[in-house]
């Protein structure tokens, strides 16, 4: 009897924790959401997934969807595991998805070869393969507002503007995975042209909460600035270790995945002064965010545990991911004259994507991000970043938009794209006029 009771309870718990949405591409706009609400990176994955889902739900509640067609968002849990990510892709691709946003460079790299075959675009917003910014080589991949390479160039530009970068030593601490290694080729190239030296500190995934050695090496190397390409628990641990060796936090800059509220919350006041890049607005002072609160959060249809989570860095980032996809859907509907579109139509929408300042204002997101304009050639969109600083309890924007060094980065991206496709004779490219 006791055994049956336990088994019954377990079954109820399991059933309750699964959210199954029956989706049909015939009468709706189907958007799969590859989430990680569980596992070691759930602290970052959860707010992103909430912001993503809440924006689409808000459009459904406020506007009746996009162009009068309801949006169906179906979550599939990846646990930030590339294999599970591919399983999620395979299990949802038959339902007529319009695009995938995996929130994982590892999963993105797996999906890039599949996108052209299945004719489903991948939108890896500010992550994934930097070279995918070259539209001719990667017709089905989009990574605006900027790539990792562009972001790194903007961070270096910021350092240069503060005290000059020539002759300085830059420490680069990174998650020793595809994501963390992605900007290293550019860092090495720019170190030569800009005249700085680099000290690299790789952190293995299983060591991300055990960084004493890495920071002993930082103390030994004495870099002038530290840049971090971290994720999950690696971020808070690194900042605590930096405090421990008394590294000046106003010379420590995280990339846009190393500057969330979940990263700095456990650090608290000790993290005051730490800097991070960002491209999505902070807080709730945007009409679009207020609409989410009104139509979704207050209506009890959000998965946020507390209303205060709305407006956090990664919540707003997830919301922005949804904004971009929603705008691309609208553009595709306009271009094709169809209400219910396909992945191929979506690619057209993403390629003609134009998020001007005027459009941002119409959307209730004035000042939320720099304008983005994609094209057949440019799948990066020419976005910008800004720098934010932790004041001990919250993030504050401390710079205006910083444009990447496009003149330096773009030729390198084109070279990298050429190298990527060079040994793939079946690779489908496109010609842009």
């Amino acid at each position, binding site marked *: 009897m006791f055994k049956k009771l*336990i088994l019954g309870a377990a079954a109820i718990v399991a059933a309750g924790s699964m959210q199954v949405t029956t989706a049909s591409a015939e009468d709706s706009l189907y958007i799969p959401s590859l989430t990680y609400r569980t596992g070691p990176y759930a*602290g970052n*994955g959860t707010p992103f997934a909430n912001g993503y889902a809440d924006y689409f739900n808000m459009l459904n509640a406020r506007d009746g969807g996009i162009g009068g067609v309801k949006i169906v968002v179906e979550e599939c849990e990846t646990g930030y595991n590339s294999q599970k990510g591919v399983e999620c892709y395979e299990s949802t691709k038959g339902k007529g998805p319009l695009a995938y946003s995996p929130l994982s460079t590892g999963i993105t790299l797996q999906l890039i070869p599949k996108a052209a075959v299945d004719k489903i675009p991948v939108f890896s917003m500010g992550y994934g393969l930097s070279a995918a910014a070259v539209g001719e080589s990667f017709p089905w991949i989009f990574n605006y507002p900027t790539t990792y390479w562009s972001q790194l160039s903007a961070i270096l530009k910021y350092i240069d503007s503060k005290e000059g970068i020539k002759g300085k030593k830059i420490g680069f601490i990174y998650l020793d995975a595809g994501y963390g290694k992605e900007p290293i080729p550019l860092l090495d190239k720019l170190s030569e042209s800009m005249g700085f030296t680099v000290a690299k500190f790789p952190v293995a995934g299983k060591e991300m909460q*055990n960084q004493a050695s890495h920071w*002993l090496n930082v103390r030994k190397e004495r870099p002038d600035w530290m840049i971090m390409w971290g994720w999950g*628990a690696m971020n808070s641990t690194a900042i605590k270790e930096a405090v421990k060796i008394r590294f000046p936090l106003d010379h420590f800059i995280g990339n846009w995945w190393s500057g969330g509220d*979940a990263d700095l919350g456990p650090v608290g006041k000790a993290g005051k002064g730490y800097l991070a890049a960002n491209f999505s607005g902070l807080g709730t002072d945007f009409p679009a965010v207020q609409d989410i609160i009104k139509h979704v959060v207050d209506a009890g249809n959000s998965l946020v545990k507390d209303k205060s989570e709305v407006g956090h860095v990664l919540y707003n980032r997830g919301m922005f991911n949804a904004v971009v996809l929603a705008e691309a859907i609208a553009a595709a509907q306009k271009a094709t004259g169809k209400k219910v579109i396909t992945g191929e139509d979506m690619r057209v929408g993403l390629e003609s994507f134009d998020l001007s300042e005027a459009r941002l204002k119409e959307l209730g997101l004035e000042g939320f991000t720099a304008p983005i304009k994609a094209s057949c050639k440019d799948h990066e969109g020419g976005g910008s970043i800004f720098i934010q600083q932790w004041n001990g309890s919250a993030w504050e924007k401390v710079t205006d938009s910083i444009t990447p060094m496009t003149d330096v980065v773009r030729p390198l991206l084109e070279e990298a794209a050429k190298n990527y496709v060079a040994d793939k004779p079946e690779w489908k490219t496109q010609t842009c006029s």
Partner: protein
Amino acid sequence: MELLYNIFIDPFVQMGAMPDFLLQVLWEGFVSGILYALLALGFVLIFKASGVFNFAQGIMVVFSALSLVSLYAAGVPAYIALALAILIMAALAVTIERVVLRHLVNQDDIILFMATIGLSYFLIGFGELIFGGEPKAMITEELGLPTGSTTFDIFDGILILQHIDIAAAVIAAILVAVLAIFFSKTRIGRGLRAVADDHQAALSVGISLNQIWAIVWFASGIVALATGIMWGAKSDVSFALQIVALKALPVLILGGFTSVPGAIVGGLIIGFGEKLFEVYWGGLLGGGVEGWFAYVIALIFLLFRPQGLFGEKIIERV
């Protein structure tokens, strides 16, 4: 020639040139070693009682620490939250014994091992359902644990000692001493050794296997809680902490799966060894080497003592 210089000469030149930094490296190695020992201790306790590698030890660290900080976040005063977290670990131990272990008496070790894998996944899912996946801050100050640091001017340089690291060393030492006395000087401790040798034989002489298992899992839960508090203070309290538990593996290989002193000595050897190698030799291999170097140390020891430093030598006569 340059390579030989970088391997055999340069690291020692660096040590001599910056002795304050060498002391810092040794201190960090000591603190890491103590924490690794604490992690390994949880595994050793259960292995001694059941001959099983407890795959769920990592998630027990997370579960106990999350219980503590979540209770505090719910408004429970810190010390009462600590007491309640201990009670939760006690309840978990009794539940595991009743629901899982009791039905597996005298089964093969691999069956028990598989049961701990199942238990681990259940606790991950159950924990995420209750506590959510967001990282939380450890309530270090609220528990009266010291924060801040003391700096010593030494050898024309500085040595920084974090107060929380000193506290971790003291707490770990006390915990180890108490457990060592409990399991070596008490009736339960002797029962534990009997159970480890043969379940059925222990039962036949009147030792309560169920009681011993519940006590050992509870002790292991307390060690998990102490580990969670210390590691949580260094980083944050999240499900990523379960990965840290893997650091116990090379310690166990080195120290032996059944020895409390082995866990301590093994932890310290790994702690000192990996820090020194990472800082002075790691650069030659691109850095980030301590993860696998711990296993290299363990394997070198295994070549000479396959049962580990303090492990029991098993002789089976045909």
